[in-house]
């Protein structure tokens, strides 16, 4: 009911419904007159950003080793930083579509091999220089050159040529890719003056806020960019990102009003946080997922029956209930969910079936324990999840030995090295990007050692396919292959769960990244 009431009140605010009709309808829906009135004021306030003030965000995922160089960004705080002082060419809108940023428009040749981005005119960097297409090319070069250390290298590898043509940037690809603009929304690709080649960690860009204080691992302070090209963002005069890695300290900071919003509320304590007055818990379904990954080329996981046995032996619902406390959705042994464009929802959901698991396990001919490596840092609750998995396996007669590894060094020594371990993926804006990052046989991060020639061909075909219906079908077929043959056991997709004070206006959900795709500070405001 309250959903439709909210819709109604928004209609009034936008002038599509008069106040009297709203009241009548709302009361008819069972709301009291006073309540309807409050709703109306709330919506009216939501429509009008309030300017000024100091908006503060408490975040985990910040270290004193962080650099402002967007190329090396790998955790939440550097991601947020990039979105304060900088802009991408295009970004992901709240509905998952593309939104123009420093590119005013973009288009491609019919074969999706040549792409043009028209660069916005009259945009100034914080250092007073005017943005030119040459800056954009330089940025792309820095992230794709031979000697780059950029985390975006993987998505840039397909680019063959880049050049400036008047006020546009022309990008030529080695292989056709209908998703190239989505690749440009990678959060590493912040446009910098001369591409950041002179001083990559200067923190100078075209963003809504100018960097004032940079104390890595402590705080990052910003002041409004009075000269911002974007008309409707940067409402607060100042914003600040406080690094608060300790969960309890972060929640306490929100509770005592020292910050207005916090990134990542641990699912375990969501129910407690909900009881705090003046604080709301926001959860946003995203593309991030927690996984158990098997190397399909290493015994015993090179046997598909064994893989199927393990896939049937995991209780996905139990994981969502006990690990995510309901703040997530069921996984289906592929890295794709309904948050992706071109997702087909006619897959059959695989569920816990000890009999089938036992059947496939017997057929695989394997005997003895299977070693599963895990660490709490591989995803929150990974050790508990591994133990749940161990128990559900034992009911199917499969013996799993859980080996706990230290958090420290997990990504260098265990993940992508050991044949069976826990891990997580943050998801990507498109299916193509997700599959090319981790399931293409030649991908650097092919962490399941998945090698399927048909799958690789289909991936390339889908990339060049501009017909939406055909494309959707190809992706559905690829999903089926991974679902049945892959080394991925995906029990759950996790929601972003964040805590926001009621003093904050303008909050919306964005599926791409946490905290409104990293832009909560510039898109929200402090209510007067």
């Amino acid at each position, binding site marked *: 009911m309250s959903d439709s009431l909210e819709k109604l009140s928004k209609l009034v605010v936008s002038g599509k419904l008069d106040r009297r009709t709203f009241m009548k309808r709302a009361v008819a829906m069972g709301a009291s007159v006073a309540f309807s009135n409050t709703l109306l004021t709330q919506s009216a306030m939501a429509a009008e950003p309030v300017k000024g003030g100091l908006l503060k965000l408490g975040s985990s995922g910040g270290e004193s080793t962080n650099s402002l160089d967007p190329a090396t960004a790998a955790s939440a705080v550097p991601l947020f930083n990039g979105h304060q002082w900088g802009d991408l060419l295009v970004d992901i809108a709240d509905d998952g579509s593309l939104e123009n940023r420093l590119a005013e428009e973009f288009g491609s040749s019919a074969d999706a091999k040549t792409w043009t981005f028209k660069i916005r005119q009259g945009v100034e960097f914080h250092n007073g220089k005017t943005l030119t297409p040459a800056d954009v090319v330089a940025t792309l070069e820095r992230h794709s050159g031979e000697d780059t250390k950029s985390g975006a290298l993987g998505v840039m590898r397909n680019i063959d040529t880049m050049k400036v043509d008047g006020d546009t940037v022309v990008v030529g690809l080695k292989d056709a890719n209908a998703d190239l603009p989505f690749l440009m929304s990678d959060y590493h690709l912040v446009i910098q003056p001369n591409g950041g080649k002179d001083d990559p960690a200067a923190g100078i860009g075209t963003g809504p806020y100018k960097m004032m204080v940079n104390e890595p*691992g402590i705080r990052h302070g910003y002041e409004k960019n009075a000269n911002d090209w974007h008309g409707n963002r940067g409402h607060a005069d100042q914003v600040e990102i406080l690094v608060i890695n300790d969960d309890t300290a972060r929640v306490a900071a929100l509770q005592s009003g*020292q910050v207005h919003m916090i990134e990542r509320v641990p699912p375990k304590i969501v129910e407690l946080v909900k009881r705090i007055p003046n604080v709301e818990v926001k959860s946003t379904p995203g593309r991030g997922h927690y996984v158990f990954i098997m190397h399909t080329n290493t015994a015993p996981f090179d046997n598909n029956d064994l893989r199927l046995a393990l896939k049937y032996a995991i209780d996905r619902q139990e994981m969502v209930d006990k690990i995510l406390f309901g703040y997530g959705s069921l996984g289906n042994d592929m890295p794709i969910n309904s948050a992706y464009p071109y997702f087909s929802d006619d897959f059959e959901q695989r569920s816990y079936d000890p009999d089938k698991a036992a059947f496939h396990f017997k057929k695989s001919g394997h005997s003895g324990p299977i070693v599963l490596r895990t660490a709490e840092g591989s995803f929150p609750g990974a050790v508990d999840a591994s133990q749940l998995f161990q128990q559900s396996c034992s009911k199917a007669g499969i013996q799993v030995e859980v080996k706990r590894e230290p958090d420290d*060094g997990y990504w*260098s020594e265990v993940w992508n090295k050991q044949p069976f371990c826990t891990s997580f993926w943050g998801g990507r804006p498109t299916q193509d990007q997700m599959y090319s990052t981790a399931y293409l046989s030649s991908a650097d*991060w092919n962490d399941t050692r998945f090698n399927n020639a048909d799958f690789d061909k289909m991936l390339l075909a889908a990339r060049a396919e501009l017909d939406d219906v055909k494309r959707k079908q190809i992706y559905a077929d690829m999903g089926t292959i991974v679902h049945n043959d892959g080394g991925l056991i995906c029990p759950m997709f996790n929601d972003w769960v964040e805590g926001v004070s009621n003093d904050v206006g303008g909050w919306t959900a964005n599926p791409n990244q946490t905290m409104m795709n990293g832009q909560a500070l510039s898109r929200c405001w402090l209510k007067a």
Partner: protein
Amino acid sequence: MSYILTLLAKRLAISALLLLAVSALIFAGTEILPGDVAQSVLGQSATPEALANLRRDMGLDEPALSRYFGWLGGIVQGDLGTALTNGTDIADAIGKRLYNTVFLASTAAVVAVPLAISLGLLAVLYKNRWPDKLISGTTLAFISLPEFFIGYLLIYFVAVQLGWFPSVATVYDSMTFAERLNAVALPAATLTLVVLAHMMRMTRAAILNVMQSAYIETAELKGLSAFRIVAKHALPNAIAPIVNVVMLNLAYLVVGVVVVEVIFVYPGMGQYLVDHVSKRDVPVVQACGLIFATFYIGLNMIADIISIVANPRIRHPR
């Protein structure tokens, strides 16, 4: 006096050697840890090319020994170098952090040391009566609780419920001294509660030990007041063990407070060190290690000197 000077010179020379050994140990330790700085910086998103490029940028392709001696050469000239991970100047970054750490430690010490010693004296005066039991009971209760738990208790009651002090102890350059004190109130209180019991119990035990001497009995027979006996006759003779414990606790306040820093989001050295260890940023770890070792060695040296000065029998050896 010359005896003390020679002692001091000897101690300083040994300290320098110790520091050298410490730096070699830290370097070896960080080399043994799995993964290197390039791998840790790029994390899950490391591609072989990006790794190789980053390693070359950071100079990790040089052999370990030449990196160590290169670093040592810098240190001797007073150059701590730059952090591998984000290229900031280490001396700069450490300077601020060290100031914060020392500020928090001194605040806690200024409260804790006099408080512990006076509580110890009180406990002696009322030995085995209720004030003694109350003091011992409470301080022992606080030392038995893990420090993070004390921190959370203070956050919950003092910061969230009462709203007296902030739960986030971030300090800014622009803060006045009073504002800084306000910001560090809760972490300083936590640390005080953690170190109180150790110093208090040692004071009590040391003085009680002295109280059994014959000259105390004489003082009692002379008719001196109990307080005068404890403060004037017993305390000076019990100073050596007390000073030792106080210095140990002061060293702890500087080098061992990373948990408290994390809970209160205090930008001190501990968190800085831990972040860089997990990223294998050797130059920073080395610099932090050296500073911590210097504090430890220095404070212990001061403790020794004070106990020598306080004890005429050691001051004038036969």
